[in-house]
């Protein structure tokens, strides 16, 4: 059997070599499909690895509470897409933050009330859609962030104060040092008392770009805007060992304080990274489908070429059958030929895909992501493509009548 396979491999190789250009173009079809799949997989991989490294940087004693939207189901994702997250009413309130802070084992709590607002600087410069984060003084500690200048928010301050990210500062004031300047948000003036040191982590578990955000006290925000939405509550526990225990306590306390409403999730460890941009995962899912389509197109290319090749070599098939090739022999010969095409295409696609993802990494904050899973997926996908699209032509070749085939001259 092994000998037969080797012989067929030799046969297939020599017949593919006879039509170099044709074989190459067919491979190219497959490789484009495979390359796009790899590109998407490595993109998704690098995003999730980015977020998980970030969480581990922040610390293993982190607990996050989010309004539950059962993100895992397709229905809720579609609802989220059609009715944008910003309008999804969150049931977390400042009261909950208070409740959590009283629980034993909790070191610090900070809410994240994210909204997109238009901001006005001192010289009538307006940033139409800036991220405003309503939080408290613990935020800096929990996130392990540091200030470049000034001080962070304090609840007890009488005038509304704000801390600004570098990117936003540059956009609004044309300088990275706007301390002391005033900013107008929803008709209320805020004095900038500090600037955040550059983070350069546009993708993180908070789903906000901290560099392009304005930080204000959640209570201040609540005074202007009564319908304050808290999208997330970040909690740091006193030690790592009691993480699970504490998160249970939080969950119980919240349910109790909300009179049984359990429309929220308490996440810790790896779970936090999971929903990092459900929109992103939807987009990459759609992209993967598109890539799959291009793979199918490539597969049809293989089938097409194999059918042409079978027709061209009808006479050869007749001769081979007359001198002793069985149906299985012919089937195997053409199937192996299709497999060589698809696997070579897969290999080319692998290389192409990685070149593309490296190029992509030059312009995005991602790191190229290579894993053995991707290699296996590539191999399996191109193998299956070869079998699926090579089988019909091979069967067609194998069942040719030797007598008629011998009379056939291409």
């Amino acid at each position, binding site marked *: 059997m092994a000998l037969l396979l080797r012989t067929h491999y030799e046969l297939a190789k020599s017949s593919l070599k*006879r039509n170099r250009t044709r074989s190459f173009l067919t491979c190219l079809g497959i490789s484009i499909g495979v390359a796009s799949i790899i590109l998407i997989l490595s993109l998704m991989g690098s995003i999730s690895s980015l977020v998980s490294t970030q969480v581990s940087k922040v610390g293993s004693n982190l607990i996050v509470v989010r309004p539950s939207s059962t993100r895992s189901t397709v229905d809720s994702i579609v609802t989220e897409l059609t009715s944008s997250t910003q309008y999804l009413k969150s049931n977390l309130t400042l009261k909950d933050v208070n409740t959590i802070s009283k629980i034993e084992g909790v070191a610090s709590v900070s809410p994240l009330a994210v909204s997109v607002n238009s901001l006005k600087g001192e010289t009538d410069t307006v940033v139409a859609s800036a991220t405003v984060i309503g939080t408290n003084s613990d935020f800096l500690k929990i996130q392990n962030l540091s200030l470049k200048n000034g001080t962070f928010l304090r609840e007890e301050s009488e005038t509304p104060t704000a801390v600004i990210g570098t990117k936003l500062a540059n956009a609004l004031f044309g300088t990275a040092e706007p301390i002391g300047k005033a900013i107008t948000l929803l008709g209320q003036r805020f004095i900038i008392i500090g600037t955040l040191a550059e983070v350069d982590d546009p993708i993180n578990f908070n789903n906000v770009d901290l560099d392009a955000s304005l930080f204000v006290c959640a209570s201040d925000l609540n005074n202007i805007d009564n319908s304050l939405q808290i999208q997330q509550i970040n909690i740091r526990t006193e030690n790592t060992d009691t993480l699970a225990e504490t998160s249970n306590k939080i969950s119980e306390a919240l349910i109790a304080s909300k009179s049984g409403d359990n429309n929220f999730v308490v996440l810790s460890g790896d779970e936090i990274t999971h929903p990092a941009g459900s929109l992103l995962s939807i987009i990459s899912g759609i992209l993967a489908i598109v890539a799959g389509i291009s793979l199918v197109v490539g597969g049809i290319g293989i089938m097409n070429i194999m059918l042409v090749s079978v027709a061209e070599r009808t006479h050869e098939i007749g001769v*081979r059958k007359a*001198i*002793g090739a069985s149906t299985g022999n012919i089937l195997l010969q053409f199937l192996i030929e299709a497999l060589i095409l698809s696997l070579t295409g897969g290999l080319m696609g692998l290389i192409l895909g990685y070149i593309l993802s490296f190029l992509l990494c030059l312009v995005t904050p991602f790191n190229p992501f290579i894993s053995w899973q991707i290699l296996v997926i590539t191999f399996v996908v191109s193998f299956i493509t070869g079998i699926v699209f090579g089988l019909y032509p091979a069967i067609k070749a194998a069942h040719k009548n030797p007598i008629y085939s011998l009379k056939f001259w291409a």
Partner: protein
Amino acid sequence: MNEEQSENNTNETIIKLEGLSKRFGYGDAASYALQNFDLEVKRGEFIMIMGPSGCGKTTLLNIIGLLDTPTSGKYLLNDELASRISASRQARLRAKKIGFIFQNFNLIPNLPIIENVALPLVYSGYHKTRRLIKASEALERFNMKDKEYYLPFQLSGGQQQRAAIARAIVSHPEIILADEPTGNLDSRSSTTVMEELRRIHSEGNTIIMVTHNPALTSYATRVINMLDGTIDTDIKTVKDSDLPVPIERKTPRKIFKSRRKSNKKKKGKK
């Protein structure tokens, strides 16, 4: 001992056709290429089949060569019903026991001569080196060694046919079926090809050859004239006992013999 064995071999019937019919088309359009055809071929015969076009010569050859199946009737190949042989074993028999020679040579145009000759060995499970050595030996027999790596179109018709004959005998088949092997050749090449066939025959091989050329009948031990799918005349020019004796070869006839034994066992059980 040796003599006894060879005596056995000469008397052995290798091909037996009984009431064989082959119909093409159905109903009103039906026509018979072979009708109630009976034939018995002994090992070592050189049969020449003659007859007008369309009398079923090629169909007969295709059926004997297991490429085609009769509509009705029995075909016994070495006492074994051909219709009972599985498709894959039929293919193996074609590779090992039957050699085909065609009028239009039927070499694969983009393979060098040596690989063309080695082709039947691909399907009987030889390593590449072994295949090429055997093919080279076969070609040497026909003084074609220097043409090994030529492509078929670079050779003359006679050379191509000699290569095709080399291919037919490379796996030492017992039956050689030739469909007008000289039909496309000039008289000189024809003579060379016929001399080669005579040599193969003298080694004890059975040859069945279809031809239009009455001059070639001098090579045969038996001449059959066909007409409308039946035998018109059947003349044996050599007595059965004078047929050439197969020379002993290293390769044993495993396929046939083992099969025959098992058949006998089955019959005994019944």
